[in-house]
């Protein structure tokens, strides 16, 4: 790894967090109803939101 390379934590930190939130959302909505349906959808929406944020804010 050269000096300019980012550490794995920086490379995979955000994708890993998004993946964990998505999985919690997917399973939470399956295991419970009511509030978990909304919370599950919100957690899964983080992945779509992150993509939208990056496409809008991280263009260069």
């Amino acid at each position, binding site marked *: 790894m050269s000096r300019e390379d980012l550490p794995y934590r920086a490379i995979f930190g955000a994708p890993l967090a998004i993946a964990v939130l*998505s999985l919690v959302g*997917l399973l939470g909505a*399956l295991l419970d109803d009511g509030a978990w*349906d909304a919370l599950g959808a919100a957690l899964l929406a983080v992945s779509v939101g992150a993509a939208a944020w*990056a496409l809008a804010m991280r263009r260069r």
Partner: protein
Amino acid sequence: MRTRTLRAWSWVHKWSSLVSTLFLLMLCLTGLPLVFSHEIDEVLLHQDWKPAAEGRQLNLDQVLDAALSRHPGGVPAFMSFDEDRPVVNVTSVDPGGPAGQYTFQPIDRTSGDPAPPVAGHPAMEFLLQLHTDMFLGLPGMLFLGLMGLMLVTAVVSGVVLYAPFMRRLPFGTVRASKKARTRWLDYHNLLGVVTVAWVLVVGVTGVVNTLAVPIIAYWKDTALKELTAAYDAPVALTGRSSLDAAVRRAREALPGMQLQFVAFPGSDYSTEHHYAVFFHGDTPLTAHLTTPALIDARTGELAAVAPTPWYVKTLSLSQPLHFGDYGGLPLKILWALLDGITIVVLASGLYLWLARRRRERQA
């Protein structure tokens, strides 16, 4: 990562993607309307309808007779029950007809007359079958399962390759001012990595769903085998005991559970000798898990309550996790958005491969 290792992962990613991309695009495109199949069926099949009579209900034997009288020669396979109207759905099969071809009849339980269907519009059935087996039956299902495994391989290798590509770029960077190939590589990496968890869940559960036929066959051949050992020949249609009494007996065996459907003797979900009466629980999780009570079709006696083994439970839970129909409309809308993003990832991957080939040819 060493150059050789990188090349190996790159080879795996390229070929697992190339082999499966067209089929995955078909699955994503047909899957998009299927996410909203309930809503689309409601619009396409909408008819004002009221039951013929209030209060009075035919027993299940009468309903079955009414259905079979409209389909002479048909052999009953399944019976299911609408939740919000007094309608019983009878599925029968023509013994001389093509395998897998069923007749589906919704019957008004108050009169025995036909009721309008609320699901299964021909356009949606066409899409569902294309999505499930490409009209090729079990070989088609297993082939699509293999394509699902290719997808999982492509996703895993894509995650491995993400690190070397992103080692100098902060998360989410899109080099929009660069040439098209670089720009689309960034779109591909970004959209691919944010949807990894969802794609893996939908992909793996899709693979499990393609194994439904062998899973159910294995369950019948193992867990239910002892129940059939005492019999020589399948129970004849005319030798069957009352269906209504069988369902009542099953209800007594599984109090508090919700009746879901009945599989008739000889159908995919039962033995040659039993009515398999399936119930589900009433919690969000157990609503997706079924337990059958097997009623001897000759005597009407309870033969067994047979909780399904782990692999049948896995199959049951794979269905909602694949179709996204368990968390209301917001979850369905997200399913559609993520499906759309996956289409972009697949198409951009194909574009990147073609652009690279063109560049290599020109060099």
